[in-house]
């Protein structure tokens, strides 16, 4: 095989071939939608045509066996057409209303719940964890599974004040929208990296390594006569950026690694502007296989929110209304000094008004 023969730069297949006929016929001409029940959407076109969507939850990490199952179900109920959502749910695109219930039933039998629509909790956007990533401070899929098992009733119902988006990332790289989620679960390291001085000179460029550190904690050093680096422990805040650029600088630490909880972020421009998630629990130790500490923390926050927020109020909007002191009180979360920002623009997070609930 020569390079000339190889097919390259063709890009993805054209989506048009995958659009169901009803979509092609009403493309861009949808009029409104309804959510007759959790997990089911009806989109009505200006023509009067209807498209029925059945949304099923999936663990995202799926076997080809399951993909074949979904394909078969699509053949049976939705003319072979289906799609995935931006939160990793699978959506069957039906023309026939009568197929909705049988499809839901079969999905249920195979273990795939239907839901994730409207004011509930959809699938957790997440990352690789110990399944595939080297820099993970915790597993991803396991934590997500453990949480979803408990918030499951909110996947199959729509009774929260508003959408509640949970996201998970296994390290500060935050592969996902963790930094703008109603609840974010974030793995973190808590010890400075350990340097393998033998491997380092072979694997890494010292200047690149030094400049990778946001706090300037890494300095050149000669160890056993070889050019290497040293890390000023007091300056390191365990971001792992050095590890990403140089595998000889090992950040993983079974004892120190764990999970933090963040709340109140959002992405949509609806009502309030997009907001970042904010740290509320700085650290919970890794506790596989079912991470009870993390699960309890998330469930507690969901419950407090469900009980106290007003209709249409996202987590962050609710907290802004009641104030952070009240949030910590209601959620019964001890206020930790780590929650107080001390990074670059920290001053912007200080309270600079006498407006205080006394």
């Amino acid at each position, binding site marked *: 095989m020569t390079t000339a023969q190889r097919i390259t730069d063709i890009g993805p297949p054209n989506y048009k071939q995958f659009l169901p006929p009803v979509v092609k016929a009403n493309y861009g001409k949808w009029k409104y939608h309804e959510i007759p029940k959790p997990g089911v959407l009806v*989109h009505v076109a200006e023509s009067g045509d209807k498209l029925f969507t059945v949304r099923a939850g999936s663990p995202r990490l*799926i076997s080809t066996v399951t993909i074949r199952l979904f394909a078969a179900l699509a053949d049976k109920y939705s003319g072979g057409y289906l799609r995935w959502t931006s939160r990793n749910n699978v959506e069957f695109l039906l023309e026939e209303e009568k197929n909705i219930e049988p499809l839901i039933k079969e999905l249920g039998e195979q273990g795939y719940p239907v839901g994730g629509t409207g004011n509930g909790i959809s699938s957790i956007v997440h990352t690789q964890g110990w399944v595939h990533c080297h820099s993970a401070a915790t597993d991803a899929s396991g934590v997500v599974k453990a949480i979803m098992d408990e918030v499951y009733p909110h996947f199959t119902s729509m009774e929260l004040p508003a959408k509640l988006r949970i996201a998970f990332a296994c390290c500060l790289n935050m592969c996902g929208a963790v930094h703008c989620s109603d609840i974010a679960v974030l793995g973190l390291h808590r010890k400075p990296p350990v340097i393998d001085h033998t491997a380092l000179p072979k694997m890494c460029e010292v200047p690149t390594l030094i400049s990778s550190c946001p706090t300037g904690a890494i300095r050149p050093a000669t160890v056993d006569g070889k050019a290497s680096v040293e890390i000023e422990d007091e300056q390191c805040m365990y971001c792992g950026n050095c590890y990403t650029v140089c595998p000889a600088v090992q950040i993983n630490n079974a004892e120190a690694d764990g999970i933090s909880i963040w709340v109140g972020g959002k992405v949509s421009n609806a009502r309030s502007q997009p907001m970042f998630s904010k740290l509320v629990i700085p650290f919970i130790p890794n506790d596989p296989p079912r991470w009870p500490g993390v699960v309890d923390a998330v469930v507690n926050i969901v419950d407090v929110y469900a009980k106290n927020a007003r209709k249409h109020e996202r987590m962050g909007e609710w907290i802004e209304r009641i104030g952070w002191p009240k949030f910590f009180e209601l959620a019964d979360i001890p206020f930790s000094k780590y929650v107080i920002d001390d990074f670059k623009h920290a001053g912007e997070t200080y309270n600079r008004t006498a407006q205080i609930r006394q």
Partner: protein
Amino acid sequence: MEKKELKIPMLEELEKGPWPSFVTEMKKSADNPMAADTLRQLEQSYEDKISHWKHGGLVGVMGYGGGVIGRYSNLPEQFPEVAEFHTYRVNQPSGWFYNSDALRTLCDIWEKHGSGLTNMHGSTGDLIFLGSKTEAIEPCFKDLGEAGYDLGGSGSDVRTPSCCVGPGRCEWSCYDTLDACYDITQEFQDELHRPAFPYKFKFKFSGCPNDCVASIARSDMSVIGTWKDNIRIDQDEAKKYAKNGVDIQAEICDLCPTSCIDWNGSNISIDNSNCVKCMHCINVMPKALRPGTEGGATILVGAKAPIIGGALLATVFVPFLEMEAPYDDIKELAEAIWDFWGEYGKNRERVGEFIQRVGLATFMDEIGLEPVPEMIAHPRTNPYIFFGDDLDEDDE
């Protein structure tokens, strides 16, 4: 081949409970020795509370600089089948639309060359083929190409663009997200496959300000649909919502960010000049309210995760752009950004950080965009104005 035992008691705890289990999924593929060793190594991680993967070392397909993520077990003797365990980022179709045949073709390829495990989909949007050996990379790529698929981005290149379902189903899409995403992905194949930037560059396309692909938080160029004219109102439908229990005053008017929508008990009225197109009122009463018909998009630039200067949301560059194929304006804008950032951006400096370093006004100057007040939340509060040499030409 003799089958090794699969002893994964901790993981099997994660088969319990109502939510579909990734462990069950992996077991479905466990006939594949790579999938089985993945499970075993993962069990080991659960015991040790630490990842057993290593990174580093370049793997990939000939002529491409990205699309494959190299990964190695750090316990290769114990788990020889995953000693090499690289993932492919397969560029998904716009909107993640498939049909059953297409999926089966993909399954065929992946069962032939890899672990049988996938992510549907990765956080950037790619279809992720999870785990194959180095030797399988080229053959798998060949089969993918013949089936009409290509790899997505990784490394310092254009990353796989993604978009919301848009006009494919959603009544609110203010431009054709599926087409824009497809067209721009095709246009920038070279930039996608051959890393030449200081760092990654992501495009995401949402049809309206609800931003269902979270573009404003996760893309270097975020294209968010919006409209110029008035919200379309169906007063009869509004009355029906009210009758059916929607408290329009409390649920809509009181939550409108600019208080520009009124309800007098029987009619909605909107001061459209003050409407910021937030979507809230429309979201609550989709039968009564619809975006206007003069659609287009707001272009925002520079969102990113925290590494290394802290996370950023995207910044408004163009408040309103018409979004007609072939999308020349947006392509030229992207290229102008790449030129400047490509020349002066530091290694591993995302464009959002670069903008902050050189200053928004300077950046706009360099890429040829006129400064407009929509670009800022508010004017500067500090008096440290750098007048430079322009002193004498200014609008004094």
